[in-house]
């Protein structure tokens, strides 16, 4: 409630005494709030005219304040039947009572002020609403920017796997997020999560949680331990009444094994040849309380299996009859084989059919679909075919010490029809042996579950052998000429001959790191043809 007071002469610059007039102090009546429900409001509206304070007998806090301030008369400002404000006037400077003319003048003044004040209040209210809308819009833009910045820019491209993702924020921008973390050695981390709340607070918590997950994922190999560590860190950081649901899985891309833990997020579905299964693992959402432990489960994906991770924006979407999309319908959709296996589009399309056209999206929608296409794709995955090239052999060997000898034998068998010079065969054997040994030891770190892939191809001009391991995130040193004198003097380790030998044995060596894999390509020109 707006209140008005008489402006003092001092404020008006009129406090200099006029000739013949005695100087007199003017009391200032401070603005007085009339709280909603105060009986004074009802009385002023009902009387609708200047009222003497002395004639009022009310249990009113505002009236008591007005009395203490020395007001004698209250002039209500009424617009459209509502009290917009009031003028409080103290005693007249002449010490005389307010006359009937004074009261008519005040009534007339109030009648003119009230509509103007009504308009002013309306304008102010609209300005406040516009500013609030602008503030909310800016906040949503900030939240959307944070989310857009932190969501993956591209999908992982792993040989033998197809990864797809769909994210559409609600107008109010919720706290959904997903992430892919390359853990090296053929392991791919996958995260999907949802922060309670919306807007900037949710986006900031999402950013914090994402950073914590990424840091923990590089230090721990157990999804359950990663979630437990993030929970401990997040409890101290997260605002009250907020929490994060999150599923974290590590996929061994060679073996197809998925190790996962779940902090209260929607269960993932897997469509296999036996139907659709839920991947269940129990755990409390992140950020609620300390000391949480998370169940960890393992599931092995076979060729053709599809794993679907979702957010609750899908299952909790409503149709015009206010029925939820629900888990059953989602599960049924996952079970359905679709053209080109575009599971993402299939689910989104079905969801849109459910909610109806032009329906405002209630929450963020996030989908991550991971398909194990073929376990045999690794070897041939990154091999750009050359014109006239013939595949002589494609095989893998487990990363066990000594298996470089197996690889050498397979390569020798493969190139036998080429009838190469014996010296060239021997050089290629040494180069292949060194490259496969490096892949086993440095690329795959002797992890017997990881395989080294070997691809042998030939053109009339050259034999190309590509050796691929999972050391895609490692720094590969340049080949250097070893300092034999220093080694013989004991100043350097006797080792360090591998890359040097590879370079000396073949005509060209190319290396390539992509999608978590590292490939060495050995090129041996066929003499007389190149």
């Amino acid at each position: 409630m707006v209140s008005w007071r008489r402006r003092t002469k001092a404020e008006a610059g009129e406090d200099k005494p006029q000739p013949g007039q005695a100087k007199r102090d003017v009391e200032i009546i401070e603005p007085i709030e009339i709280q909603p429900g105060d009986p004074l409001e009802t009385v002023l509206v009902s009387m609708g005219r200047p009222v003497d304070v002395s004639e009022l007998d009310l249990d009113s806090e505002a009236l008591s304040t007005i009395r203490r301030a020395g007001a004698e008369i209250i002039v209500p400002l009424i617009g459209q039947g509502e009290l917009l404000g009031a003028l409080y006037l103290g005693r007249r400077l002449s010490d005389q009572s307010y006359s009937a003319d004074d009261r008519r003048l005040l009534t007339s003044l109030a009648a003119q002020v009230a509509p103007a004040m009504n308009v002013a209040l309306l304008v102010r209210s609209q300005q406040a609403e516009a500013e609030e809308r602008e503030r909310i819009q800016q906040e949503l833009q900030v939240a959307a920017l944070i989310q857009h910045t932190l969501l993956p820019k591209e999908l992982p491209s792993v040989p033998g796997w197809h990864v797809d993702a769909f994210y559409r924020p609600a107008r109010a921008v919720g706290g959904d997020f997903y992430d892919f973390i390359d853990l090296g050695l053929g392991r791919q981390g996958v995260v999907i999560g949802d922060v309670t709340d919306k807007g900037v607070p949710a986006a900031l918590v999402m950013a914090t949680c994402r950073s914590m997950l990424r840091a923990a994922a590089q230090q721990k190999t157990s999804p359950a331990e990663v979630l437990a560590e993030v929970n401990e860190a997040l409890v101290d950081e997260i605002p009250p009444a907020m929490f994060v649901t999150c599923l974290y899985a590590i996929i061994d891309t060679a073996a197809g094994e998925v190790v996962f833990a779940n902090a209260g997020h929607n269960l993932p579905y897997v469509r296999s040849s036996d139907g659709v299964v839920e991947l269940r693992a129990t755990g409390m959402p992140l950020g609620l309380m300390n000391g949480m432990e998370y169940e960890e489960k393992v599931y092995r994906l076979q060729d053709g299996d599809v794993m679907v991770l979702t957010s609750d924006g899908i299952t909790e979407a409503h149709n015009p009859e206010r029925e939820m999309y629900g888990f059953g319908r989602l599960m049924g959709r996952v079970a359905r084989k679709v053209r080109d296996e575009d599971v993402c589009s299939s689910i989104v399309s079905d969801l849109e059919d459910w909610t109806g056209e032009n329906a405002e999206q209630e929450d963020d929608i996030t989908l991550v679909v991971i398909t194990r296409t073929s376990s045999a794709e690794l070897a041939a995955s990154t091999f750009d075919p050359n014109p006239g090239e013939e595949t002589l052999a494609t095989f893998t060997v487990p990363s066990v010490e000594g298996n470089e000898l197996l690889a050498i034998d397979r390569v020798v068998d493969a190139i036998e029809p080429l009838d190469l010079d014996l010296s060239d065969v021997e050089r290629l054997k040494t180069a292949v042996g060194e490259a496969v040994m490096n892949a086993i030891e440095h690329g795959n770190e002797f992890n017997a579950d990881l395989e080294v892939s070997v691809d042998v191809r030939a053109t009339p001009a050259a034999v190309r052998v590509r050796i691929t391991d999972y050391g895609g995130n490692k720094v590969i040193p340049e080949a250097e000429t070893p300092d034999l004198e220093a080694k013989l003097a004991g100043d350097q380790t006797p080792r360090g001959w591998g890359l040097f030998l590879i370079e000396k044995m073949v005509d060209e060596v190319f290396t390539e790191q992509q999608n978590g894999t590292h490939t060495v390509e050995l090129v041996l020109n066929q003499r007389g043809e190149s």
Partner: protein
Amino acid sequence: MTSANTFEARVSSGDRGPVIELTGTVNKAAKEPLEAAYEEAASVQGEMRLDFRAVDYINSTGIAVIVGLLAKARATGREIGAFGLTDHYREVFEITRLSDFMTIYDDAKSAK
């Protein structure tokens, strides 16, 4: 066939000094038996020679083992020679410059 991942080293006597007969694959697993054979051969006077006739594969870690052996010999002023290398491994010894620090004999007859 390169699959036999085994190694043996045996010391015998030649006309000019001890001979270490190497058999199988020379890689890092050869370090211990080869060093043991070296210690045994070191007690015999004369030029020490490595017989590679029964070696089917040498990799970079095997080269490192031979470098280690050569370093040990040079520290005590002991001469080391080698024979029985295939053309390929003779080329490897030249590329690695091992042949600059040990005499490479064409055959067993000239070595012994």
